[in-house]
């Protein structure tokens, strides 16, 4: 199942060398210290630290949500993204809340946190608080803050690609697109939809600053990639769209942040849409109801099955970007924040069908009593 990673090839598709594939067993190469992020006031080191902290928060939060699910405290299902935090948080940490746009998907707690979504949004949505972003009208990962650049995903895969493209097109028409980027998260399953194809092709036609991050986590629910697509690598799709493509080891924070940061910078600077394909393994079931028993041990034990949290921790410690003591305090702080967010959401009222206005129209005069 494990696909061979390749070095830079000719043509518009650039395969990023997977130089850190075996980082756990090797000395980490010298990491450049100059800024690779677009905010020049932030060093590369700080950008990495910020991204990793969001990963810690996300992992801590989702572990708690999984426990609450098993304890029967959650309304509906729980969909978490262990193993995907490095990629997801790298997207979010390259974007600015209320300025850029992030079309988050099912396994994007890392990206949501890094982008700026309060973790209360997650606990309120999962625990059924009426104060959640959807007031209980929708839940779990379908939450968002569209007006702040975080559209609320629908379940139909690929559908958010064109929505983010439309948000960017609007900015262009309004003359406020300069320096703005929109990112949208999809998976290997979404890559098979017509919606994904239509959206990314349209963005290419309009040359919009859209970064499509395609996380190939090897399984769409239980469907393996050999039942999903036939091409060598999904990054080859970029050639068909006439846009730059990058492939990266998604278990590797340093590589993921570097590649995603580069794609975001290219898009910001007028380079048009970018496709990043990140390879990794989903380290959970599809949802917490699913034990993922269909995932073969060979994949679990391959490089794809590495836990990005362990890789990142090792990388940052080795590079001297973080100390053991700092890590300890970050983890403690994340645990406290999560505990507080859970406690607050649990104290809050549930939606009340008798006081909900049941309004489906923004123009209330249109409401029919039927």
């Amino acid at each position, binding site marked *: 199942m494990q696909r061979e990673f390749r070095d830079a090839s000719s043509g518009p598709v650039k395969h990023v060398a997977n130089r850190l594939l075996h980082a756990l067993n090797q000395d980490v190469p010298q990491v450049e210290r100059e800024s690779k992020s677009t905010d020049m006031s932030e060093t590369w080191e700080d950008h990495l630290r910020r991204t990793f902290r969001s990963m810690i928060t996300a992992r801590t939060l989702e572990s708690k949500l999984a426990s609450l699910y098993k304890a029967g405290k959650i309304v509906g299902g729980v969909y978490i993204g262990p193993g995907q935090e490095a990629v997801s948080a790298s997207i979010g940490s390259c974007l600015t809340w209320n300025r850029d746009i992030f079309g988050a998907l099912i396994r994007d707690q890392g990206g949501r946190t890094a982008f700026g979504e309060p973790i209360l949004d997650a606990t309120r949505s999962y625990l059924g608080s009426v104060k959640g972003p959807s007031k209980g009208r929708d839940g779990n990962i379908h939450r968002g803050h569209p007006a702040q650049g975080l559209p609320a995903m629908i379940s139909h895969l690929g559908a958010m690609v064109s929505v983010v493209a*439309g948000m960017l097109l609007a900015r262009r028409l*309004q003359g406020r697109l300069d320096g703005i980027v929109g990112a949208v998260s999809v998976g290997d399953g979404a890559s098979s939809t017509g919606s994904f194809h239509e*959206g990314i*092709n349209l963005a290419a036609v309009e040359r919009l600053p859209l970064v499509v991050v395609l996380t190939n986590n090897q399984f769409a629910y239980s469907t393996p990639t050999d039942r999903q697509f036939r091409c060598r690598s999904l990054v080859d799709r970029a050639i068909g769209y006439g846009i730059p493509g990058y492939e990266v080891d998604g278990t590797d924070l340093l590589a993921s942040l570097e590649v995603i940061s580069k794609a975001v910078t290219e898009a910001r600077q007028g380079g048009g849409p970018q496709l990043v394909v990140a390879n990794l393994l989903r380290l959970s079931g599809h949802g917490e109801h699913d034990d993922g028993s269909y995932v073969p041990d060979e994949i679990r034990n391959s490089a794809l099955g590495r836990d990005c949290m362990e890789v990142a921790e090792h990388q940052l410690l080795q590079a001297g970007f973080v100390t053991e003591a700092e890590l300890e305090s970050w983890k403690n702080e994340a645990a406290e924040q999560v505990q507080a967010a859970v406690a607050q959401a649990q104290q809050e009222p549930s939606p009340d069908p008798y006081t909900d206005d049941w309004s489906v129209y*923004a123009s209330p005069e*249109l409401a029919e009593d039927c």
Partner: protein
Amino acid sequence: MEEVTYIDAIREAQHDLLASDERVFIYGQDVGDFGGAFKATQGLKSLYPDRVIDSPISEDAMIGLAVGASIEGMRPIVEMQFADFSSVGFNQIVNQAGTQFYRTGVPAPITVRLPSGGTPGSGPFHSQMMESVYAYYPGLVIVTPATVADAYSMLVDAVALDDPVLYCEHKFLYRWLKSDRLSDDDEKLPIGQARIVRAGKHATVVAYSAMVHEALRAADLLAEEGWEIEVVDLRSVKPLDTDTIVASVARTGRLLAVGEAFPWGGVTSEIVSRVTNDGFHLLDAPPQRLNSRDTPVPYHPNLWEAHRPTLESIAAAIRNLLRL
């Protein structure tokens, strides 16, 4: 004043919207320099080059893009080349646009123009009526203008509305229907209000879109036989103006609901259902429905004429209703 056609009204409304509101842009296949498959956007690209945008053939992404743009404060008008092709954008219409406000509190004010209905020789995939399909879903507004003035004012009103609107324009009316006025302020009604276009006392015919004109012709025919038939133009099928319909039935005691859509369920069923619920005691006869046949829309004009309700079939249905 020169005569204006139904399609002129649609073009003029879009022109005036582009001129008066910088949030408005038009997105669709061939809408730019080509002026649209039916010339509804003719000349607009040269006047507003940035805001009249040709799209790829991607109905799903076209609607998704419009919803995204609306989140950012724009007022997109999407032209579906034919209503039939909106089925490809169905998911984005009903699940993205239709749920957006309910789920997030952020409105999705998009207008989707659906060139609807049959013309002779158009066949199964260029003739469909989609209003009943979309009316089923919460959060959407469905308008079906039947006059030149409504074609103009309802498009302007649709764009002004903070909710997603499916604007069902009938292709048969494009060049056939003419008026000496683009709009009529005296007769202007808001979206959601039906209009009694012919007063009568023996039976009520509720119709919308092109069927309003067939119903009026049938009423003319019945008048020669001594019957006074009231004709109600729904104007919008969602919201549905139940009050006006029930009030009419209160006067006439008999109801025939006419639609060009397929017969299973849909707008005419909804009308009969509501009148039966709210006005059962007003009815002197079982309420009747007349729709197209339950087959794809046929290609040959002979078959097409016999597929949809016509002057003759509506007149026959009214005569039957009057005998019940």
